[in-house]
């Protein structure tokens, strides 16, 4: 049995698939592939056809990676070569020099005339003429330099082309063998010799080469090659329509937007009164104590340092304002984000709607959505909180969804098998198991909110961001750095405290 197997293994004809794969010139590739596959060292071979007709060989053999790389490399070297041979490098400069010489001559004549007439400005004419002549000489020098550069370009281009031919020749068989190996795993991979593919390759080259070469080599340009035929009116009507939409919404939804503002304001006021109104030693003690209980004495030490920095440099009130803004935004993010994340994990439809919305919220530059926020909510702290929420919401939603989805199916099944209801499953199984992921999401959300502080201050959300903004306006480097450090310390403080929530297990064990 065993001997039979080995015998049949030896009898497998490895050449057959190679023939099937290459179709044409199979004898040649058979030889090289076999050598590549049997050599323990690098097998060096040179494929003349691939060297000479690189992209065309690749196209006919459906090796499209090779096709694009070699087509682009050859295009670059052709541009260099073309610029060197046909390009009018330095031509512009020479023309400029001619003009300058003529001008200088003119000035000199004028100066001579003025001198003859005994006018006072003769000297000025001569000085101008001198300056112009010097400029002209510079232009001539530059032109010569360019001309030299042009011949250099030609040499580089030719050299590059030669090197490309060599590389093509030496790598073609190895690349083709790799494709053969992939084809053996997956018959969908391009194989054989196809005239259609060759024609397709030629068409691509015929489209790219003339236009690009013309653009880079010729001195004069055809306008449609350089400029896209864009239509201003489309842009204008769309922008105008959007404008009227915003106006319409702002007008008709005023009550709705006001209500949101009110709610946020109420919330924000409460936090701010608590943080700013309470005597600073009490707040300071509470924060240090909290960080000690949650994250240990090390974090408490950092927190104390950060807080004393804020206090000594006079940032206390501003940083408390910032933290209350941040706190309001973060709490709203979590209160909305965690349930939304759970819904996304449970319901595919909601997930497919939410995902692009989150991408949009996170990717859209903050300055862009500041505009509608101002339009709808005006300026001040509540719109600042809103802008912060938009930017900060995605991580907590995403990581909650991820956390719930990562709960092992076997554990969920186990809970269900004992009669667990859906509510209990969520509260007692899924959320506890997703806890770490959710906490990571909350941490991310808070830090992202903090990074919005400066931008939120643009629309009147006062706090540490305002100081940075002012420093930016007046180029006050020292002030800016100090305010920036204050934001940084706030971030470190919050991060340390929340990090502590991640590791309760290790402390107890």
């Amino acid at each position, binding site marked *: 049995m065993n001997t039979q197997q080995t015998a049949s293994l030896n009898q497998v004809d490895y050449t057959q698939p190679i023939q099937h794969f290459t179709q044409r010139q199979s004898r040649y590739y058979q030889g090289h592939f076999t050598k590549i596959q049997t050599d323990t060292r690098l097998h060096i071979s040179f494929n003349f056809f691939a060297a000479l007709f690189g992209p065309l060989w690749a196209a006919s053999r459906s090796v499209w990676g090779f096709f694009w790389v070699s087509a682009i490399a050859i295009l670059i070297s052709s541009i260099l070569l073309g610029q060197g041979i046909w390009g009018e490098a330095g031509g512009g400069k020479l023309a400029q020099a001619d003009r300058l010489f003529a001008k200088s001559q003119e000035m000199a004549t004028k100066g001579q005339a003025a001198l003859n007439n005994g006018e006072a400005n003769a000297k000025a004419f001569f000085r101008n003429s001198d300056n112009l002549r010097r400029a002209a000489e510079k232009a001539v020098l530059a032109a010569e330099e360019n001309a030299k550069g042009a011949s250099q370009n030609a040499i580089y281009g030719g050299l590059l082309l030669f090197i490309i031919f060599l590389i093509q020749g030496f790598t073609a068989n190895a690349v083709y063998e790799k494709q053969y190996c992939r084809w053996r795993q997956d018959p969908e991979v391009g194989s054989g010799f196809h005239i259609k593919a060759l024609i397709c390759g030629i068409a691509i080259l015929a489209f790219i080469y003339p236009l690009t070469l013309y653009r880079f080599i010729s001195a004069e340009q055809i306008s449609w090659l350089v400029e896209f035929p864009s239509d201003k009116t489309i842009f204008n009507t769309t922008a105008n329509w959007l404008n009227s939409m915003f106006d319409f919404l702002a007008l008709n939804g005023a009550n709705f937007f006001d209500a949101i503002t009110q709610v946020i304001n109420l919330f924000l006021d409460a936090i701010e009164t608590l943080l700013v109104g309470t005597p600073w030693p009490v707040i300071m003690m509470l924060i240090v104590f909290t960080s000690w209980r949650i994250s240990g004495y090390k974090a408490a030490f950092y927190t104390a340092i950060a807080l004393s920095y804020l206090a000594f440099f006079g940032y206390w009130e501003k940083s408390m304002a910032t933290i209350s803004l941040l706190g309001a935004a973060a709490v709203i993010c979590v209160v909305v984000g965690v349930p939304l994340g759970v819904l996304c994990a449970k319901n595919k439809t909601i997930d497919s709607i939410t995902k692009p919305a989150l991408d949009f919220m996170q990717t859209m530059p903050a300055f862009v959505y500041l505009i509608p926020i101002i339009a709808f909510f005006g300026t001040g702290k509540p719109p600042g909180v809103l802008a912060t929420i938009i930017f900060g919401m995605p991580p907590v939603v995403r990581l909650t969804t991820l956390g719930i989805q990562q709960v092992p199916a076997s554990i969920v099944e186990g809970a269900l*098998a004992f*009669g667990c209801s859906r509510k209990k499953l969520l509260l007692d199984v899924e959320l506890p198991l997703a806890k770490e992921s959710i906490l990571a999401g909350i941490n991310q959300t808070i830090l992202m909110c903090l990074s919005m502080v400066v931008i939120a201050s643009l629309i009147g959300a006062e706090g540490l961001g305002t100081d940075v903004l002012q420093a930016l306006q007046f180029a006050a480097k020292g002030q800016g750095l100090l305010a920036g450090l204050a934001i940084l310390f706030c971030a470190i403080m919050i991060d340390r405290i929340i990090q502590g929530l991640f590791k309760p297990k290790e402390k107890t064990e």
Partner: protein
Amino acid sequence: MTTDVIQLENVWKIFGDRAEEAMQAVKSEGLDKATVLERFGCVVGIADVSFKVARSEIFCIMGLSGSGKSTLIRHLNRLIEPSAGLVKVLDQDMSALTPNALRETRAKDIGMVFQHMALLPHRTVADNVAFPLEVQGLPKAERWETSMHALSLVNLTGYEYRLPHQLSGGMQQRVGLARALASDPEVLLMDEPFSALDPLIRHELQNQFVQLTKNLQKTTVFITHDLDEAIRIGDRIAIMKDGCLIQIGTPEEIVMQPADDYVADFVKGISNLKLINAHSIMLAINDTTLPISIDKTAALRADENTSLEALIDLSVTTTLPIIVTNDAGQDIGVISKDTLLKGIKGEE
């Protein structure tokens, strides 16, 4: 009330987007699995399975991976809904239960043990065991008391306040068993509970389990891919292949009379010394064509239920054939050394 606690009648399960259509087609046209896959892109998980399990019986379902045994056991507590057929547990049609009634049945009447334990990693051992009781809404004190008792049944007293990951695999599985026993259910479902454990621990747990079920008298459906395990544990064994039950019988029936080559292949490696008894290999004593002469006075006697193993021990002490007696003490058969050797080899 019948003594059958679990009853399955013509249960089918077809997986896929067009499962209902496929089920219709199977019913009306009697398609086979390959055709169902080809025409509907649906996989037949369970095909026309019927069996009954009596009260306090241990019913083993043996099959290789992919044979549908895990799918089948999940029908019993409706973790998977059947495409067709009847599933009755404790005289209740499982498919007809309302969600609330189903939850209650699962919590009270059916305990399940999983191959990968499926313990809640953030809860202590005691709280894991108490989970089914918690689901039923029992007060904390009662939950704790019961979970202590259940843990003592599986010899895990003293580990109540550990977390599952602090325990070894075997101990974790015992926690799983304790959880299944906590609400004192009538039915136990065991889904390859010992497969992921190493052989020594597995053996130990098997013995512990047999002892436990003997005392507790639970109706048990036990899934395994190991015929040795099935024979050691099961009162009856069902052999499953590609979603069909191909043979149901006692361990002895399975080993002695395999229904087809597939089963025969399985039982080939099984030692039959403990399974086969004197009755099944003896030659009838009143058979006139007996090739041996019997000395009724000097010959040793053995009960008809004596195992081959014991017969070997007996036969090395004598040169004479052994006489087999029935419960009434009458001589009913005879076993010579030839017969014994043939019996050990599995020849009739």
